[in-house]
C-alpha cells in the first residue's frame, strides 16, 4: 500500500516535471484600428485545457475586451486580470472566440494560437457594445 502510494507520487511528480509544451501554431494578429471595442462578460465559470494535466478556469464575472483578430477568431484580453495557459512553461493568453464559441487562446509573446483541447466550447457571455 505504501509502495503503491510512493509510486503514484513519483509518477505524478515525473509527469509534472516532463509536461509537454503548450500545443500551438503561429498565427497572424491584426489589432483593432480604433480601440476601445466591445467588451464581453463571462457569466459562468468554464474549465478549459490546452494540454495534459493543466486546466484553467475562465472565471465568471471577468470582463474581456476585444483587441483584434487572428485567423482563428476574435481576440479578447482580460480587463484588470491576468490569464495564462500552462504546459512545460506558462504563457500569458487571451481568449479567441468564433461567435460565442471559445476555440483557443492567442499567446501575445509567441504570436501563436493554442487550440483548446475539447474545442469548441460555447461560453455563456454577455456582450457590451463600446
Amino acid at each position, binding site marked *: 500500500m505504501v509502495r503503491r502510494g510512493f509510486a503514484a507520487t513519483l509518477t505524478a511528480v515525473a509527469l509534472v516535471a516532463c509536461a509537454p509544451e503548450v500545443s500551438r501554431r503561429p498565427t497572424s494578429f491584426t489589432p483593432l484600428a480604433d480601440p476601445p471595442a466591445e467588451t464581453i462578460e463571462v457569466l459562468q465559470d468554464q474549465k478549459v485545457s490546452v494540454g495534459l494535466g493543466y486546466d484553467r478556469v475562465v472565471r465568471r464575472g471577468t470582463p474581456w475586451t476585444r483587441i483584434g483578430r487572428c485567423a482563428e477568431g476574435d481576440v479578447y484580453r482580460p480587463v484588470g486580470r491576468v490569464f*495564462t495557459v500552462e504546459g512545460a512553461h*506558462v*504563457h500569458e493568453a487571451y481568449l479567441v472566440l468564433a461567435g460565442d464559441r471559445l476555440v483557443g487562446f492567442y499567446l501575445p509573446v509567441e504570436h501563436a494560437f493554442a487550440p483548446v483541447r475539447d474545442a469548441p466550447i460555447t461560453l455563456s457571455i454577455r456582450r457590451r457594445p463600446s
Partner: protein
Amino acid sequence: MTLTRTLIVAIAAGALLSGCASGAKYGEVASSFPALNPSHGRIYFYRPSAFGAAVQPDIRLNGEKVGTAKPHGFYFVDRAPGNYEVAAATETEKKLTFTLAPREERYVRLKIQMGLMVGRIVPELVDKDEAESDLKTLSYIAEPLK
C-alpha cells in the same frame, strides 16, 4: 530528551528563517517607491512561502539576472514595454512569458513545487489584487542582486 528535541526544532527553525528575507514590509515601504516612468512598466517578483527555503535560484528576466527567489521577500524592476520571459533555473526550468505595456504593473509570484530530487521554482503571473494581498506580509529586498 525534551531539551534535545527543543534544540533540534530551534536549530531547524533558525536554519529555515535565516534563508528568508527580513527587511521592511510592503506596507511600510510601498509609498516610498519611486514613481514609475510613464514610458516604462514595473514588474514585481515575490516568493510568499518559506517551504523549500534552501532552493533559491537566480531569477532571470529575458536572460538577465534580476534577483533570486528569496522566501518571504519581494523586489521590482522597471523595464521598457515589450515581451518578457521569466526563468528560474532549478532542477527543471519553467518559464513564464508575458507582455508589459507602458505604466503597467505586473506581478510574478515564485511558487515552489516538488521536483524529482529537489524543489523547483515556478513563476506565475498573478492579478494585482491577489498579489497585493500576498505582498502585505513580505519583506522588501532593496538590492536583489546582492
